[in-house]
């Protein structure tokens, strides 16, 4: 069930009204669990199997971590178990295909059968959250949750189940444990956040997707301007798609009296690649920072080790996104971008003389370039696109002006938001006017059937 569908509106109306009724009673968490499982099972009841499995195993394993002397062994079991589930559903085909390539290179006549396993939506998100929780319990950063109901609700809380944010136990569990009242402010704030997310998804992301899909579907039929514009539009499409999802998730949670973490913070205004990753998919980048980058040594062991750690983290982050070499390459490109802007920031000219807007445009340009490897169906397609951008002609791209206008409007809004004249956006007429424009645009023009979220496939 997707947030921008009619079935979700019907589901949420019922689920929310009952939630309000049972909010102050012992039924609150059971009801939350029921609606979360129902929400997830709507996509496929089979999806519940790995979800329930991961929940049960980590609930018991963290119990052992808390009490046992061999905490490390139990933590290893939790990590291996979660990675095994992830590997089975997400990477088994990728591994089999690569083993077969290797075997054929070695001249072996053997071939490993490539399994066609359905990847449950949101699997990578809740497994990462589960692993994070187990590590936190092991480190003593979080007290192990005694109540199975509370823990199950933490893993399966439906707004964030499909595509995050990848929450931390110390942020969500305390909110689930206590029964704080839902204020009118919670409701109106949640609604505000939801509407912005809904607009990003159905009015912007799905719109840009049309042009991107056309060009990336047949890159050899298009020339440099169209390929450049499609890549630029994809940069915004994926931002609107994913941050739109997160906003909707946060809005729904807020209406239910729970706060999910901020996941996007105007990433296309970043001044460096490091800054970009502090603003883009914050829950994932902070997860990799806390559970991969820092345990590897972070930036404490010299320049070379720092770059090695950044590289490993970025490649793993790329691989987390999808089981394909394009994602690995995307991670590598980001690691290289990170090195570049780190080194540039060390020079006094770049740090002091280059205006912020130029740095922002540089980062935006670099990130946009990297998206080619993320979006292209294969590495050869990615290189074709890169090659054609530099070698093909300059045919009219026929890119809708309306799409470009909407992107410029959003970019201008974000720019003002981070500027000294932010107060302009605080005016009631601006805030109310924007919401009216967004809702008016949606109900007047947006097609009835929305597209799935890009990040759900990860």
């Amino acid at each position, binding site marked *: 069930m997707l947030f921008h*569908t*009619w*079935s*979700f509106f*019907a589901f949420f109306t019922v689920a929310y*009204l009952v939630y*309000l*009724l049972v*909010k*102050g009673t012992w039924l609150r968490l059971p009801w939350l669990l029921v609606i979360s499982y129902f929400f997830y099972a709507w996509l496929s009841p089979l999806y519940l199997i790995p979800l329930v499995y991961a929940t049960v195993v980590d609930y018991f394993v963290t119990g052992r971590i808390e009490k046992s002397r061999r905490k490390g062994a139990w933590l290893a079991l939790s990590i291996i178990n979660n990675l095994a589930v992830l590997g089975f559903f997400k990477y088994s085909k990728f591994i089999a295909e690569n083993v077969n390539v290797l075997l054929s290179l070695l001249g072996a006549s053997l071939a490993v059968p490539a399994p066609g396993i359905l990847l449950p939506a949101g699997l990578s998100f809740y497994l990462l959250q589960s692993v994070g929780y187990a590590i936190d319990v092991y480190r003593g950063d979080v007290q192990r949750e005694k109540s199975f109901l509370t823990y199950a609700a933490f893993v399966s809380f439906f707004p964030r189940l499909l595509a995050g944010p990848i929450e931390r136990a110390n942020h969500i569990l305390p909110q689930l444990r206590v029964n704080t*009242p*839902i*204020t*009118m*402010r*919670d*409701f*109106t*704030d949640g*609604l*505000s*956040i939801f*509407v*912005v997310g809904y607009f990003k998804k159905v009015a912007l992301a*799905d*719109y840009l997707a*049309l*042009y991107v899909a056309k060009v990336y579907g047949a890159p050899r039929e298009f020339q440099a301007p169209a390929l450049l514009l499609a890549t630029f539009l994809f940069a915004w499409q994926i931002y609107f798609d994913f941050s739109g999802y997160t*906003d909707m998730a946060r809005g729904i949670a807020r209406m239910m009296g729970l*706060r999910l973490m*901020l996941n996007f*913070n*105007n990433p296309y205004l970043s001044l460096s690649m490091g800054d970009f990753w502090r603003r883009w998919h914050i829950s994932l980048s902070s997860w990799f920072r806390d559970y991969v980058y820092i345990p590897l040594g972070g930036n404490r062991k010299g320049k070379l080790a720092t770059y090695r750690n950044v590289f490993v983290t970025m490649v793993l982050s790329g691989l987390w996104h999808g089981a394909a070499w394009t994602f690995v390459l995307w991670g590598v490109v980001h690691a290289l971008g990170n090195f570049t802007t780190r080194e540039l920031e060390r020079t006094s000219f770049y740090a002091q003389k280059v205006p912020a807007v130029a740095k922002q445009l540089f980062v935006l340009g670099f990130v946009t370039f990297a998206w080619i490897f993320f979006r292209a169906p294969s590495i050869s397609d990615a290189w074709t696109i890169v090659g054609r951008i530099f070698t093909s002609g300059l045919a009219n791209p*026929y*890119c*809708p*002006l*309306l*799409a470009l206008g909407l992107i410029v409007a959003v970019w201008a*809004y*974000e720019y003002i*938001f981070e500027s000294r004249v*932010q107060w302009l*956006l*605080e005016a*009631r007429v601006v*805030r*109310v006017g*924007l*919401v*009216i424009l967004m*809702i*008016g645009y949606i*109900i*007047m*023009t*947006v*097609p*009835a*059937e929305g597209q799935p979220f890009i990040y759900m496939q990860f």
Partner: protein
Amino acid sequence: MEAARTTIQRDSARADDAPAFDCSHLVRLSGREWFIVAVVILCLVRFGPVLWNRVEAFHPGSDYRVPYELSSDYWLYRRHCSRACGQEKILVVGDSVVWGHYVPPEQTLSHYLNEFSGSEQFANLGLDGTHPAALEGLLRYYGAHIWGRTVLLHFNPLWLSSSKHDLQTTKEFHFNHSELVAQFAPKIPCYKAPFAQRLRIAVQRKMPFSNWTSHLRVAYCQSKDLQTWTLEHPYSNPLWVMLRGLPEPQGPGEMPSGSWLDKGGKRQDLAWVELDGSVQWRFFRRAVELLRRRGNEVFVLVGPFNEHMLTEANAATYNAIKDQAAAWFRENNVPCFLPSPLPAAQYVDASHPIGEGYALLAQQLLEQPSFTSFITDRNTKGQP
């Protein structure tokens, strides 16, 4: 609900005390501001279509029919319907046979009925592709103006000529005007749309605003949503396109010049369905009942189906079905006319006549005492 109301506690704290709004934008509205938004949006929803009615010129002539390319523009159909009802016309309702699929507007059934009766009292309210299941929805949701009127309702037996036409197949089958059919009950076996889509359709077709935005899409964006349309017209301003007015009807494209006999005229065995178990017949009956419940006088015209293309045995099956239908009309006091087939050369296919066929059918109809008394009664009684 009371508990729900009390659970959401009014937060009267000043903005300074309000919980943090940890977002990368400032689109944060208070309850009062949401109320303003709701009022503005409700005004748009309520008055947008009404104002558009004044902006968009619509002056249908006596032979007007909803253009072929706007067949899914139910808002326009409703508008045409309302105009015809306002002019107290006899409404000729049905599928492409009434609409006149292979003939220009001046050779349709309603045109000849007007011509031969000597007055412009018949309006063509046919809509291309509206099988009975869709027709029932069309009348239910978009024919609300048809209240206390006189209706000549056409039934095309073609829809009973196979289980596929009758929507009985259990395998999914995409048919015309699925947005008009019953979404949840009665169940249509071949209709397998997802729940979300059914729910959307069921809600949207009751909302004039939604029908209006659909009208804008169909009439001005070639049945595409604005976003898709801008891909094909990247540098055009959609507002200017809309202000130019409704597009000129283009017609169904290539029209066959001859009759079905010119194409070989082979006889066939059609797999007629049982009338009692027929989905389409069930919906047709519902359409008749709906119209009568709304105080309309209904006269049903059945066919005439091209029986020349049926084998002898198959024609007998068809006639048995026709007799069963006639019996139902009699039992329910629905005046009807089940004409003999037109001359073979006056059919384009199984059910569509050529222009001469329509003229002959109109003549036959006007010679029917039951029909003349039906329209005379209407003229005597006057319309409400």
